[in-house]
């Protein structure tokens, strides 16, 4: 189990209370799970992905990560339409454990980019983890 000070938490990401990260790029947002989440879940052995074109509201479930321990739902940090899914995760779900920030899960076209204002930056997320 990683100590809080061992966790990798990049500065340029937004974070959710449910341990997703969101990275804004021009007109899109990439979404994945944090180092804390992958460490808690343990071996991720299956990733259930949505389909390109699906739309989801902020806070709704768009997929799930199956670890040896449990099935964990993944929630939308912001509302939007899925524009790409990381197909590499179908054969190699362990990429999420190996590098949770390189292993993005979906890319979306956000409905309203200002929704990112409600997300946490690194310091606030770190504060949540420290309880």
């Amino acid at each position, binding site marked *: *189990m990683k100590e809080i000070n061992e966790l990798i938490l990049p500065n340029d990401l937004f974070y959710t209370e449910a341990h997703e990260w969101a990275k804004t790029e021009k007109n899109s947002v990439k979404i994945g799970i944090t180092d804390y989440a992958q*460490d*808690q879940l*343990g*071996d991720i*052995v*299956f990733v*259930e992905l949505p389909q390109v074109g699906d739309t989801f509201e902020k806070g709704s*479930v768009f997929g*799930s990560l*199956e670890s*040896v*321990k*449990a*099935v964990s*739902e993944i929630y939308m940090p912001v509302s939007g339409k899925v524009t790409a899914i990381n197909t590499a995760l179908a054969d190699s779900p362990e990429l999420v*454990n190996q590098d949770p920030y390189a292993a993005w899960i979906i890319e979306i076209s956000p409905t309203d980019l200002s929704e990112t204002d409600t997300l946490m930056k690194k310091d606030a997320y770190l504060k949540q983890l420290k309880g």
Partner: protein
Amino acid sequence: MEETIKYTPLHDWHLMHGANMGSFAGYDMPMWYKGGAKEEHLSVILSAGLFDTSHMAVISVKGKGAFDLLQRCFSRDLAWGKKDGKDASMTGKCVYGVFLNDSGGVIDDAIVYGVAPSDYLVVVNAGNGEKLASHLRIHAGTHPVDIEDHTDKLGKMDLQGPLAGRILQDAGAFSGMDIREMNYFTFKGHFLGNVSGPSINGIPVLLSRTGYTGEFGFEVFMKKEAMPAIWQSIIDAGEKWHILPCGLAARDSLRTGAVLPLSHQDIGDWLFLNHPWTFALPFDKGKKGFTKPFIGKDALESNMRTHSHVTYPFAGFDLRKVTTSKAPSVFTKDGKKIGNVLTCVTDMAIGRHDRTIISIAEKNTPQHIAIKGLSCGFLKSEVPLKPMDMVTLDDGSRKIDVEIRADLRPHRTARHSMDKMMVS
């Protein structure tokens, strides 16, 4: 009520080795180590894994009335030797069974060790030592029996996997012993050191050909203070054999694939009838009655013909599972609810070739089949089902189709002989 968290003698070792810790039966236990539960599960199938199981409880039952007490309380007939006119003693043997209450429900499952004709050890699940000890004391009444609960006073570890014997040999455990005698469900030595037997680092251990993974291996009992040194010796001896320390997650998936129940999840305070573990009951040859009286017998007998709930093993078609904490239900193909799921895990060592389950332990697995794991577990149905019947499990957020099976992970090694497992 706030409960104090308990620690095993290896707690510091687990933390130093990056274990992901979790609470189990009041103990802070390793769930998995750095490599993850999948690798640990596979190591027990292919090489060896070492589990800290010192959270489990050991009770000693001694004295002139010890045999009669266990014969009355335990679900197995411990007097099987008598019929050939031999001594009824089960010295050197281990027997798996359950302790039932008067209503035929399970208090706990256990292994009884025959140390001497009037000296037994009873190994039960974590947190159940005092409960079982007091159950035995009540039923001992005024009979001459001395019952002692050794909870938190002993160390125990399980070394499981096909290379377990070679690792113990390298750790020096077998010196001066004829290891060919170490048959399945027998044991040698004692942690008190009062009999000649195996030792590690010069420390006497009780070594049994048992475990709870379905694979070849041993349980090792020692005095609590000796545990860290013995654990390290086995880890060191096992390094060249690719031993891995394993947590409770791998233990859970391994035991499920081996069709072994988890007490208070797959068996519990309900009638111990109609399940895959009827070998734990003292049925007579015709399977219509029992070979001895025991606590719970009347309740089982009076319900035997009418009790309709049946527990079955099942296997899915890929590794996706349902979440047991969401209380998943079992449905027939036409949507009728017929039961509930007791355990659902992924056995990462198995896959499918059509409707046949195959294991990574098989030497001749078809090359084109990638084994990625299968969900499996136990369900309780209100209607009779048969192997290969299909049902749907639904936990509210996911539905999976599964098949009723007579057995789960094939090619298990638990019963293999020492001769077979000690040659390379």
